[in-house]
């Protein structure tokens, strides 16, 4: 077939080429004839079938299984790591902790009983950022249990994991056996029917959630329990700490100057009120950062994409605010605690770089490691970044517990400190997993004290959560090296006073609406009172959408897992 373009210069025709096809002609103007085309097509088809069959024979499954790295061709799966080795006798594990040992024994028992067989594969859906961590876990797993293969289904961005997991809940296709999710999504994932309860496996295999090796409470409970049942294994911790420029905070001249101006000591702030004064002081000094940029007193999240809620929520909870009424599920954010949280943030605003309201979350990291902010708060990875050899603050970055709010508890003044734990990766076993018990055992192994230490120290996005990693001399030096010793101490305290994201169904939606309004207030496009009343109205609609009673049950269970200081204030205020 040949397409002819009219030589007529009429522009309308130019864009409407006329196709002329003479079906009777066998050969047209030296082009391929129809007969030759058909012959060639059939020939190509036959050759294709032969080549395909040969390829399939050459790459039959047992040959593929011997490869250590395989790249898949699907769009979502960026790469697949298959941890295998020739099937040999399992070497006896030496010196592993009891949690990992129980996992290994459990797998062997399953194989012995025929409940799992050599060559079985566990498929894990996860985000690209945790790939290095999981590859380390696979490497260690294959040393002890080479019979069972692990396949990683890697997705690029966090929201992709959520979308894929929710799709799986709808299609029930069994495309993966486990997924690592933000604990914020736990309510949605459980209610959608994707997460398998794992209380039975907990009882049977004991993943070490008690005693000195246990993950720190309340984090261990609020990230894995939903309505009183266990649905996840802790895989990470994401509690915020205060990071600061130690060189500026301890400078004798600056300390004198601050004392003379504000009548108080320049030190780590105990409250947000103190922090505002210090932020003002440092901002007005117009200092030059090691990067050459300006030094701002503070940088706390207020950006529009997802992180703005974190700062607001922290101050709100510390001032004794409760998100919902524990009897009616009515939103309780349009209250004096909600207004106070905005008040603190708005008073801090002049001492924060404007990018705090506009840039993405990573900008906070960038500014701190360049020495451009004195006080900031973020995930533990900020401390890792600040201690890298290339960081301009590597020798002067300090860590502390976030400041608190002074509240009245039963007639006495008390500073309540709490630390938010936004997102936090946890491992969930799919209800549609081919072998959920086997899958569970992999995660018990990967999060055990010995193996988990190596897994966490390998990558970037996972952070420490077991008490022994902070306190046991066998583990602590490795974490001190990675994070800095001051951070390890501050982080342990922060974990103990940490509170969860809104881990009920619709959690991302509730927090998304809050983020948009916090950002609008900080940008000056919305009044705080309007923002609070609008958010409360939105939250009320979400409650109704999912059913007030069901949401109330989840909220009551979650509220009980908040840190004890916070609950004490709730009780004093009659909220609890």
């Amino acid at each position, binding site marked *: 077939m040949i397409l002819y373009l009219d030589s007529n*210069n*009429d*522009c*309308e025709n*130019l*864009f409407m080429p006329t196709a002329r096809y003479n*079906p*009777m002609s066998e050969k047209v103007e030296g082009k391929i004839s129809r007969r030759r085309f058909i012959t060639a097509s059939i020939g190509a088809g036959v050759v294709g079938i032969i080549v395909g069959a040969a390829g399939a024979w050459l790459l039959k499954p047992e040959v593929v299984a011997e490869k250590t790295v395989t790249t898949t061709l699907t769009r979502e799966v960026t790469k697949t790591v298959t941890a295998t080795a020739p099937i040999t006798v399992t070497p006896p594990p030496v010196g592993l902790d009891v949690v990992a040992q129980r996992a290994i024994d459990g797998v062997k028992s399953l194989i012995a009983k025929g409940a799992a067989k050599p060559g079985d594969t566990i498929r894990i859906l996860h985000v690209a950022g945790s790939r290095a961590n999981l590859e380390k876990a696979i490497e260690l797993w294959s040393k002890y249990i080479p019979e069972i293969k692990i396949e990683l289904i890697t997705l690029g961005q966090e*929201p992709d994991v*959520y*979308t894929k997991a*929710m*799709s799986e*809940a*709808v299609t029930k296709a069994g495309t993966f056996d486990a997924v690592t999710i933000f604990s914020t999504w736990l*309510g*949605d994932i459980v*209610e*959608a*029917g994707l997460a398998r309860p794992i209380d039975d496996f907990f009882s049977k295999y004991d993943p070490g959630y008690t005693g000195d090796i246990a993950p720190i409470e309340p984090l261990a409970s609020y990230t894995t329990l939903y309505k009183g049942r266990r649905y996840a294994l802790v895989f990470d911790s994401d509690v915020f700490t205060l990071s600061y420029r130690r060189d500026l905070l301890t400078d004798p001249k600056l300390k004198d100057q601050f004392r003379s101006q504000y009548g108080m000591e320049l030190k780590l702030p105990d409250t947000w009120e103190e922090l505002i004064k210090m932020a003002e002081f440092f901002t007005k000094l117009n200092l030059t950062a090691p990067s050459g*940029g300006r030094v701002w007193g503070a940088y706390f999240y207020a*950006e*529009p*994409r997802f992180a703005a809620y974190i700062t607001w929520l922290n101050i709100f909870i510390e001032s004794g605010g409760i998100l919902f009424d524990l009897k009616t599920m009515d939103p309780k954010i349009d209250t004096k605690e909600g207004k106070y949280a905005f008040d603190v943030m708005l008073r801090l605003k002049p001492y924060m*770089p*404007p*990018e705090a*309201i*506009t*840039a*993405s979350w990573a900008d906070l990291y960038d500014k701190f490691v360049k020495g451009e902010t004195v006080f900031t708060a973020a995930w533990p990875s900020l401390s890792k970044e600040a201690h890298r050899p290339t960081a301009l603050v590597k020798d002067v970055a300090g860590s502390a517990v976030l400041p608190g709010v002074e509240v009245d508890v039963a007639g006495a003044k008390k500073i309540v400190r709490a630390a938010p734990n936004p997102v936090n990766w946890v491992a969930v076993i799919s209800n549609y997993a081919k072998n959920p018990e086997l899958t569970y055992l992999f995660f018990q192994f990967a999060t055990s004290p010995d193996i988990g230490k190596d897994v966490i120290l390998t990558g970037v996005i996972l952070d420490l959560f077991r008490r022994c990693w902070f306190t046991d001399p066998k583990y602590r030096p490795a974490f001190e090296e990675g994070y800095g010793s001051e951070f390890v101490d501050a982080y342990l305290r922060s974990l103990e006073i940490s509170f969860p994201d809104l881990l009920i*169904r*619709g959690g*991302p*939606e509730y927090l*998304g609406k809050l983020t*948009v*309004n916090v*950002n*609008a*207030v*900080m*940008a*000056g*496009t*919305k009044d705080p009172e309007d923002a609070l009343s609008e958010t409360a109205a939105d939250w009320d609609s979400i409650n109704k*959408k*999912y059913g007030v009673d069901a949401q109330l049950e989840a909220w009551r269970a979650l509220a009980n897992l908040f840190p004890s200081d916070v609950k004490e204030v709730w009780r004093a205020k009659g909220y609890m």
Partner: protein
Amino acid sequence: MRNNPPKIITYLANLPLNLLLYATLIVPFALMIYLAFLAWNPAAGINWWEAPFTGVNNFIRALSDSRFIAALGRTAAFVVIVVTIEFFLGLALAYFMLEEFKGKKISLSLIIYPLMLPWVVVALIFYLFFQDYGPMNNVFLKLIIGESAQNIHWFLSSTTAFISLIIADVWQWTPFIFLVMYSGLSAVSKRLIEAAQVLGASSRTIFWRIQLPLIKPLVLIAVVLRALEAFKVFDIAYVMTGGGPGTSTETISLYIYRVAIEYHDISYAAALSLIVLIILVIIIRSFIWYSFERGVKR
């Protein structure tokens, strides 16, 4: 004259294409329409076919959803502004590029270059461009207003954030209009222009009375295509401003994305999408009627 092949052969030959079309386009579209009348949310733990039928509730909800209406209005304003600017800029560039001059080929390549970039890349470029420390403040505005340019925070005000989105879109898509207009103007018969010149017509008259009327179909195609694309704007709003400050630069696509993916309110998102589709069909159809079919007797 050759006989047509039997109908069964025609059907069989078309079958693969039809199957593909149904599987990838018509079935999902029908499903979306159906979902718009349900109250389905994946987090509810029920299958979509088990979701309760709610009639037109989602559509009624949309009419009272101030965020949806604001996003719709904002997107419409965005479309009108960017398409107008891009059209006149593209047409002017095309007109001037009709002349022969040294370096024309390089200039053509440079003009078309932004069109080749992925949307996300353009968004990132302009995100950095409009940062407080970015070239807009530190190079361009500094030359005009001096050091005070440092105090302009583009993404902190609703107006300047919206303007930054417009500039990014105009930069990327003016070349598209240019390309279409340039192709059209180049194809206009030189004989017509020469004849007009012989009769004493000025350049302006030739442009308005001969060249532009002849490329009218192309103008329509370019404007309609561009308007449809501009209405779907997502990437630059998502990357550059995140829809902020607050929701002041949230476009309709970004809002529907949030409803569907972040709030997983799939049925409501389907209803919003349908409303947008209907509005677009009405506007585009009216535009085509006004431009081409008005006054034509059949």
